[in-house]
C-alpha cells in the first residue's frame, strides 16, 4: 500500500485524483470522522496497488484529529488501515524550505520513500528554477517533478513507484529508522537542502500578491466576500430551476407509468404515494445541493476559502471562535455533516466543539425543500421595491436568522459550557490556482452519490415506514373518520400535539416532525405522503399542488412558526451521529439536541404569538 503524505496545500489531493482517476473510495476511518480517500493505482507492468491520500500535516507531532490519523497511518497504528509500504511525500516546489522539514522527518523513518516535487509550474511562474537531481542526492530518495493538476510527471512517478513496490511474494524490506533530530536541526537541514536545490530565483510580480491586494483589502475584501456569498445563494436558486423541473417531470412520468402498469391496490399505492411521492420530493433538491457544493469546491480549490477565513477571523473572534471555523460553517450551508467533518482541522478542542455545536444552525440544503414549499405557499410573490422579491427576502431572513442564532449561541457557549481561552488563528494562505474541472466534477459526483444513497436508504425507508404508518390501520368503512387521523402515525401525532399546539402547530405538522428526525427534508415528503394518502383517489385534490393544499389547511402564523422551527431544530439523525463520533460520546450531541429543540420551540412560539397578535 502506498500513502500520499505531505503538508497541507502541497497538492496531495490533486495528485491522488490524477493517479487514481475515478477509481476512488471515500469513507471514514473507523471511530473518527476523518475522511479516508483510497484508490487503486495501475502500474505499467499490470500490477495494481492500493493508494491512500492522508490528511495534510506539518509534522508527525499531531495537533488535530486529522493530523493524528496521518501520524497513526504512517506508524501503522491506525485501526482499519495497513501500514504503508511506500511513502510518496508530496512537497510544494515553491515552498521547499518549509515542506522539506516534514519530508526529512518522514524520510528519517527509513521507509521506501519517493518525493513528488509538485506544482513546479507555479514555482516557475514565481521565478524559481529547481534542480531535482541535486535535491534527490541530498535527500537520498528519488525526486520526481510533477504538476498534478496538469497530469505532468505522472509517468515518471508511476515508474518510481513501480521500482519501489516489492514484487509478488517478495518480502517487505526491513525499515531502518535514521537518528531522530530536533525540530531546529530538521529546519536548518531543510533550509540548507532547499538552498542547494535552487538553480535560479528571479523576483517576479506574483499573481497571488496582486489578487490578495484586492481580496484581503480591509474594505474591499469583506465586500468581495459578501458579493461572492450573494452570487452563490442567487445561483443556488436561479440555476436550479431547469434541472428541478426535469426531475419533477421524470418523477411525474414514473408515476404515470406505474399507474398504467399496475392495477389499483396496495402495491400501486405504496409505489406512488410512498416511494415516488416521498423520494421524489427530496431528490428534486439535488441540483441546489450540487450548485452549492460546486461553489464550495471551487472556493477551496482556488485557494480563496482560506482568505475568507482570514477576513472572518475578526468577527469569529468576537464570538469566541477562530476564522478557521468559517470554512466548516460555510460547508454546513450545504450539509452539516461535511461541515462537522471539516472541523477536524481546528486544533483547539474547545473551538472545535463550539463549531460542531453551532454547525446545525447554518441553513443546510435539507431545509431548502421545507423553506421553498412554505414560502411558495404562504408568502406572496411580489416586489418590495428595488427589484427585491418578498419571497426571496423571507428566504434571506431565514438564512440570516440561522447565522445570528449561531453567533449568539457560540458567544453563550464560550461563556458557559465550553468556556476556555479565546482560541487562536494560524494558517497558511496557499497560492491561487486555477482549479481543474475534472477534480471539481469528481468532487461533485462523490457528493451527489452520498446524497442519492441517503435518498435511496434513509429517506426511502422512512417514507415507506411513514406511508405504512399513515395508511394503517384503516378506519371502519362509512365511519366518516379521516384515514390519516385514524392511522398509527395519526395517533402518535396526537400524543405530540398537546405539546406543539401552543406554538401553533397542527396535527399534520406534529405528524411530519416525527419522520423529519431522520432528515429534515423528509418533513416535505411526509406532508406530501400524508396528503396523498388523505386525498386517496380524489383526482381533483390530487391535481392540486402540495402548496395549494397547505394554503387551505394552515394559517399564516402556523406556517411562519413552522419556518422558525426549522431554522433551529436539530432534525437530522445523521448529524447527531456524526457529532457523537466527533465528540467521542453522547454527552455533547445530547446537549446539542436539547438546546436546539429548546431554541426551535421558543422561536416557533415567539413567531406564532407575534403573528397572531399582529393580526397576520
Amino acid at each position, binding site marked *: 500500500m502506498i500513502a500520499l503524505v505531505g503538508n497541507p496545500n502541497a497538492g496531495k489531493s490533486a495528485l491522488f485524483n490524477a493517479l487514481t482517476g475515478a477509481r476512488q473510495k471515500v469513507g471514514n476511518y473507523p471511530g473518527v470522522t476523518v475522511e479516508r480517500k483510497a484508490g487503486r493505482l495501475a502500474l505499467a507492468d499490470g500490477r495494481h496497488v492500493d493508494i491512500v491520500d492522508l490528511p495534510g500535516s506539518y509534522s508527525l507531532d499531531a495537533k488535530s484529529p486529522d493530523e493524528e490519523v496521518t501520524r497513526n497511518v504512517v506508524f501503522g497504528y491506525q485501526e482499519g488501515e495497513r501500514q504503508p509500504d511506500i511513502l510518496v511525500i508530496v512537497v510544494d516546489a515553491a515552498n521547499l524550505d518549509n515542506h522539506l522539514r516534514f519530508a526529512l522527518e518522514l524520510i528519517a523513518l527509513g521507509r521506501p520513500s519517493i518525493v513528488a516535487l509538485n506544482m513546479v509550474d507555479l514555482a516557475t511562474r514565481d521565478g524559481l528554477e529547481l534542480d531535482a537531481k541535486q535535491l534527490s542526492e541530498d535527500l537520498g530518495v528519488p525526486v520526481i517533478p510533477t504538476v498534478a493538476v496538469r497530469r505532468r510527471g505522472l509517468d515518471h512517478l508511476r515508474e518510481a513507484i513501480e521500482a519501489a513496490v516489492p514484487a509478488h511474494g517478495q518480502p517487505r524490506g526491513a525499515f531502518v529508522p535514521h537518528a531522530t533530530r530536533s525540530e531546529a536541526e530538521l529546519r536548518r537541514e531543510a533550509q540548507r537542502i532547499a538552498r542547494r536545490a535552487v538553480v535560479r530565483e528571479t523576483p517576479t510580480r506574483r499573481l497571488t500578491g496582486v489578487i490578495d491586494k484586492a481580496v484581503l483589502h480591509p474594505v474591499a475584501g469583506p465586500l468581495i466576500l459578501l458579493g461572492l456569498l450573494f452570487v452563490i445563494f442567487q445561483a443556488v436558486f436561479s440555476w436550479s430551476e431547469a434541472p428541478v423541473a426535469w426531475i419533477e417531470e421524470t418523477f411525474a412520468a414514473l408515476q404515470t407509468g406505474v399507474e398504467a402498469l399496475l392495477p389499483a391496490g396496495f402495491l400501486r399505492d405504496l409505489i406512488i404515494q410512498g416511494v415516488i411521492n416521498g423520494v421524489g420530493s427530496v431528490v428534486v433538491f439535488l441540483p441546489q445541493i450540487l450548485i452549492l457544493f460546486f461553489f464550495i469546491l471551487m472556493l477551496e480549490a482556488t485557494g480563496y476559502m482560506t482568505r475568507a477565513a482570514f477576513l472572518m477571523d475578526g468577527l469569529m473572534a468576537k464570538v469566541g471562535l477562530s476564522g478557521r471555523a468559517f470554512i466548516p460553517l460555510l460547508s454546513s450551508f450545504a450539509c452539516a455533516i461535511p461541515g462537522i467533518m471539516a472541523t477536524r482541522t481546528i*486544533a483547539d478542542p474547545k473551538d472545535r466543539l463550539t463549531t460542531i455545536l453551532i454547525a446545525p444552525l447554518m441553513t443546510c440544503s435539507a431545509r431548502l425543500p421545507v423553506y421553498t414549499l412554505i414560502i411558495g405557499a404562504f408568502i406572496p410573490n411580489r416586489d418590495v421595491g428595488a427589484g427585491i422579491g418578498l419571497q426571496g427576502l423571507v428566504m434571506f431572513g431565514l438564512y440570516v436568522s440561522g447565522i445570528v442564532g449561531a453567533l449568539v449561541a457560540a458567544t453563550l457557549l464560550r461563556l458557559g459550557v465550553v468556556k476556555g481561552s479565546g482560541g487562536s488563528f494560524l494558517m497558511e494562505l496557499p497560492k491561487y490556482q486555477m482549479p481543474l474541472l475534472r477534480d471539481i466534477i469528481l468532487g461533485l459526483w462523490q457528493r451527489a452519490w452520498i446524497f442519492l444513497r441517503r435518498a435511496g436508504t434513509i429517506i426511502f425507508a422512512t417514507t415507506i415506514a411513514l406511508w405504512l404508518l399513515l395508511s394503517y390501520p384503516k378506519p371502519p368503512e362509512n365511519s366518516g373518520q379521516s384515514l390519516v387521523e385514524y392511522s398509527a402515525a395519526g395517533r402518535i401525532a396526537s400524543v405530540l400535539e398537546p405539546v406543539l399546539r401552543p406554538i401553533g402547530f397542527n396535527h399534520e405538522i406534529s405528524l411530519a416532525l416525527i419522520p423529519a428526525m431522520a432528515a429534515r427534508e423528509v418533513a416535505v415528503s411526509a406532508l406530501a405522503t400524508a396528503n396523498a394518502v388523505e386525498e386517496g383517489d380524489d383526482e381533483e385534490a390530487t391535481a392540486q399542488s402540495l402548496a395549494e393544499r397547505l394554503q387551505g389547511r394552515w394559517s399564516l402564523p402556523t406556517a411562519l412558526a413552522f419556518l422558525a422551527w426549522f431554522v433551529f431544530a436539530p432534525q437530522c439523525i445523521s448529524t447527531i451521529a456524526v457529532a457523537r463520533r466527533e465528540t467521542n460520546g453522547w454527552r455533547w450531541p445530547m446537549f446539542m439536541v436539547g438546546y436546539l429543540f429548546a431554541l426551535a420551540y421558543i422561536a416557533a412560539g415567539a413567531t406564532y404569538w407575534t403573528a397572531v397578535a399582529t393580526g397576520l
Partner: protein
Amino acid sequence: MPVLLTALTPNRPAYVDTVDWTAMSEMDGKRLRELGLCEGASIELLHRAGFAGRGAHACRVGRMIVAMRAAHAAAIHVRTGADIEGEAGAS
C-alpha cells in the same frame, strides 16, 4: 532597532529578530515554527484585516503566506534591512 511585527510598514522586507514564545501557547509556538516563523526567518507584513488593523495579519514568511492574529504578531520582533545595514555601519 527591532520593532514589533504589528508596527512594521507593510511590504517592507524584514527578518525575525526575536519571538516571545511565552506569549503564546506551546502548541501555537510549535505551529508557528512549523510554518517557518522562527528567529532569522525573512518576513514581510502584507495585509491587516479589519478596521484600524486590529484583525488578523497576513505575512510572507520565506515563500509562504502565513495568517496570524494581532496578538501573535505582537510577540514577534523584527528588524528591517536598514536596521542591519545601520548597525553594520556603526560597528
